[in-house]
């Protein structure tokens, strides 16, 4: 009576070895697909692509967010957010729309702090061009009367011939508040 079940178990034991290669291959192929369809970073997603491309999410990809108020002051939003990081990993249209929706629906306020707007010089030093109010989602300060929101996603490229490091804008989102 034991024979059929032990034979079955033996058969399972012989074939179960295929599971890991199958799952690992599917995840690898999914990474390759998403890399081409949604620009998923080579460094993430189980595609064995570490040290294969200059697209590390935190160092070579960027998401810039700006809020423009009713006085036409364009304020950069400097805050780390998981959703922002996810866009750096996989800048899909869906992720960008989610971030835009989150920012649009956040009641932004002026904080006590100000953001210095810098200009980089050729030698790597900076000069201060001016200061803008720093928007914050926290506190009880005055609410910002927002006129528009801009999100810019881009990537840093390096040209080996000219030795130029370039930040290229790849995707944008713009939202106008109706008055």
């Amino acid at each position, binding site marked *: 009576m034991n024979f059929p079940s032990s034979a079955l178990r033996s058969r399972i034991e012989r074939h179960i070895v295929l599971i890991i290669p199958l799952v690992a291959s599917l995840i690898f192929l999914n990474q390759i697909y998403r890399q081409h369809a949604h620009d998923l970073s080579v460094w993430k997603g189980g595609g064995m692509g570490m040290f294969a491309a200059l697209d590390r999410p935190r160092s070579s990809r960027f998401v810039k967010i700006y809020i423009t108020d009713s006085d036409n002051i364009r304020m950069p939003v400097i805050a780390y957010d998981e959703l922002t990081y996810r866009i750096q990993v996989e800048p899909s249209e869906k992720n960008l729309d989610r971030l835009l929706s989150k920012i649009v629906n956040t009641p932004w306020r002026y904080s006590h702090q100000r953001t210095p707007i810098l200009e980089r010089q050729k030698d790597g030093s900076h000069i201060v061009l001016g200061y803008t109010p720093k928007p914050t989602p926290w506190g009880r300060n005055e609410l910002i009367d927002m006129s528009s929101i801009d999100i810019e996603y881009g990537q840093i490229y390096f040209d080996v011939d*000219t030795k130029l490091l370039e930040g290229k804008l790849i995707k944008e989102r713009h939202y106008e508040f109706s008055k």
Partner: protein
Amino acid sequence: MNSVNNFFNNMNSKLEPVFNTIEEHLSKWTHLELVSMLTLILLIFHGFVTENFDYPVQLFFLVAVFYRPALSNSFAWGVVAIMASYEVMNFWHHTANHKFLTAYWTWTLCISHWCQSEQHKERNLMISARFLIMLTMAGACIQKLISSSYMDGSFFEITLLTLPSFEFLLQLIGVDASLPDFTKSAMADLRSASTVVAQSAISIPIDATFSLVAMAITVWNLVIQFVLEILCFCRSDRFQLIFHWLFLFFIQTTYIAAPFVGFGFLICIWCYTISAKRFPRMSYLYLASLLMIVVYQSPWRQVLF
């Protein structure tokens, strides 16, 4: 050729007592037990994203130290594998590729311990270890070949300057000490929403020698991974020996220059797994490599430079 043979024979006879001592100690473990213990050590030192994973693994390790049969418990490995998979899936945006491989490996151990037949246990372990080595090498080669920034050398030119792990290498090749900071600040300014950069472009003063070194590393990295992949396919003793010597060379040269310890540890375990029965003495070198990878993490570079 004779002098090379003589050298190896001499070395072999001198190291005989060392090999015998290692053999004697390792004979107290079964192959699967030792691989399981090494994996558990890897999981303790280089686990996953959250601390939720650490406590059960530490507990498992302590139990296994005092009660070795626990190492062969497929249920315990199943729990570890489920937690590892949860960590990978839930935090995949943050998870490095070698953590995926670690999760696959924990499942391999779970399945191997679940098998009743010794033959199936061993077969499962060997096939999975060999497959994961081949997937890693093939995946790395494919990604490099289809990448827009690898083959032209731009990847290593910038990565060498911006990853702290390569500081030692930069000192070794005599790169201007201010260049890495200049490049990092250029990257930060291009990413910043509050910094204006003229034409969104910054010139990096890289000289021809550095570009040449970066290109040499680019080519070396691709070629060695490609050759390892090909050799892994060839199953004859001669090719397998070449594969192991080359892999050991790859491990030592890679991790002495840039200590990415978690992945190094994992590939040493896989290579130990596939070499232990066929080339026992070669497999000891992988165990020694595990120790060396840990030693490479010490601040010896800062002492030298």
